[in-house]
């Protein structure tokens, strides 16, 4: 089995943790503003799970790095170029349909990824994945059902869901593009080969979108630059100005 460097492992853990951090933040923006009370409660649940997962991933990232950084330090004190989440996670909420479409497209990947990670050769990663996968199983059932309900609802809800899919589909590809870090993780048996996840993903997503009477856009174009940190969207910086405000304005304080 090949070895991975500490830097590679840190990078991988940031990818996992930044996805949940940034998406959890986005979902939490809904709190108090959802279309029905039950949805408000459900969205808060999802956000809570994602924040909890972030604490585990970024906590482990800090341990692996060995410089004494906590999960909070990593979340609150890095700038945009150090973030490793996929671009899909940082996309704005839009309307409720756009939020649920983003959630479903992410959840389906997340489920496949975490399922594979439960078999990771890295014990702590396998343990985090085992805990998270149960939560994400529930997330994807819920987001999938909502996509179906709204896609196959009224003509207005159908149109809005198709618009959301058209808007967000180009962000799906990035979740499956491997780079040197992913290759190293796969070679060491720490994480799966991302290309292998794609078939699983399509087998999950295609029938749900079909039942929702939605058309997957043609063309394989994929935006990228989030998980490598090379080029995020403009949205991420604004998210950080809120998320990091107190830690930046009052350095050294404990809360």
């Amino acid at each position, binding site marked *: 089995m090949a070895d991975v460097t500490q830097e590679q492992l840190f990078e991988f853990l940031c990818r996992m943790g930044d996805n949940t951090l940034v998406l959890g933040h986005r979902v939490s923006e809904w709190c108090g503003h959802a279309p029905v009370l039950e949805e408000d409660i459900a969205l*808060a649940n999802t956000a809570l799970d994602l924040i909890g997962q972030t604490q585990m991933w970024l906590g482990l990232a800090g341990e692996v790095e060995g410089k004494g950084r906590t999960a909070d330090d990593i979340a609150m004190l890095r700038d945009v170029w150090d973030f490793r989440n996929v671009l899909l996670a940082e996309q704005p909420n839009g309307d409720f349909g756009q939020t649920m479409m983003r959630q479903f497209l992410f959840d389906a990947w997340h489920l496949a990824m975490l399922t594979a990670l439960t078999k990771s050769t890295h014990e702590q990663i396998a343990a985090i994945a085992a805990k998270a996968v149960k939560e994400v199983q529930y997330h994807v059932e819920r987001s999938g059902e909502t996509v179906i*309900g709204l896609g*196959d609802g009224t003509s207005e809800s159908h149109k809005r869901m198709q618009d959301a899919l058209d808007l967000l589909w180009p962000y799906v590809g990035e979740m499956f593009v491997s780079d040197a870090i992913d290759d190293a993780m796969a070679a060491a048996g720490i994480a799966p080969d991302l290309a292998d996840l794609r078939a699983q993903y399509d087998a999950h997503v295609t029938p749900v979108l079909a039942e929702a009477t939605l058309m997957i856009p043609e063309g394989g174009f994929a935006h990228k630059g989030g998980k490598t940190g090379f080029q995020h969207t403009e949205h991420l910086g604004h998210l950080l100005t*809120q998320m990091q405000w107190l830690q930046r304005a009052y350095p050294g304080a404990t*809360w």
Partner: protein
Amino acid sequence: MYAQMVKSEAADESAEAQAFQARIDAGEKIEPKDWMPAGYRKTLIRQIGQHAHSEIVGQLPEGNWITRAPTLERKAILLAKVQDEAGHGLYLYCAAETLGVSRDELTEMLLDGRMKYSSIFNYPTLTWADMGAVGWLVDGAAIMNQVPLQRTSFGPYSRAMIRVCKEESFHQRQGYDIMMKMAQGTPEQKAMAQNALDRFWYPSLMMFGPSDADSVHSAQSMAWKIKMNTNDELRQKFVDQTVPQAEYLGLTVPDKTLKWNDEKGGYDFAEPDWAEFFEVIKGNGPCNTERLAARNKAWDDGKWVRDGLLAHAEKRNARKVAAE
């Protein structure tokens, strides 16, 4: 309180009404299918509805800080708290529905201003310390009122209060914990904590409503065990509990007249500005416009979602029937 200045209907003198009152006096619970005077039903709908609306609108001032919470743990705690409040709203709407009014009807009355919510949620949350002050003072004041309401005569309301109270005391402790961290923190944090107390003290006292010791409405509600204590009793209890907590934090209650009174075994304290209270109730509080606008926007923007999900459920049912 979460239900402030709820107007009580008058009792009637029929034999049924007298038998009903006898049940209440004997400490029995009234259940939705039981006979009840029209006035009892109407008053309860007003009170439970207003209470539910307060939980829902109450999500907004705290929701305001979820995206700015300083640590992941604080963010999770705050999010869970606001989620609890939505849950409280849900239990209470369910309790109100047993009286023959739907959640949608109640919601519409909130949105067009026919029904009120607690005055406290029309005050802004300006710093992180406000998350501490709200938990400590606002949830603390709510508990004062809701603990006795666990014994209220209407079964579904009483059971909702039992569930709610467990979570509220948790919220209050979490709020106090935030205040503690701030009060023991950097000079800026301590100043933030004092500033939050300065702004939230009097609005918290207003939560109990103006003195109702001589009010006919309150007397009827108390006979029906819909209201368990007078506003002044609860306010006094709140002050007596809170002042030592503020002292422990090293913060100063913004009331120069505050003084322990040995004779009554409680604090003497200044009344809040009731003129301000009535302005807030009328719609002129610092955030009334924003709060109602936010609820209206959520409702209006959500229409297509509610319609879409309903249409889908109907289609699915129709397909099921066709398949059978």
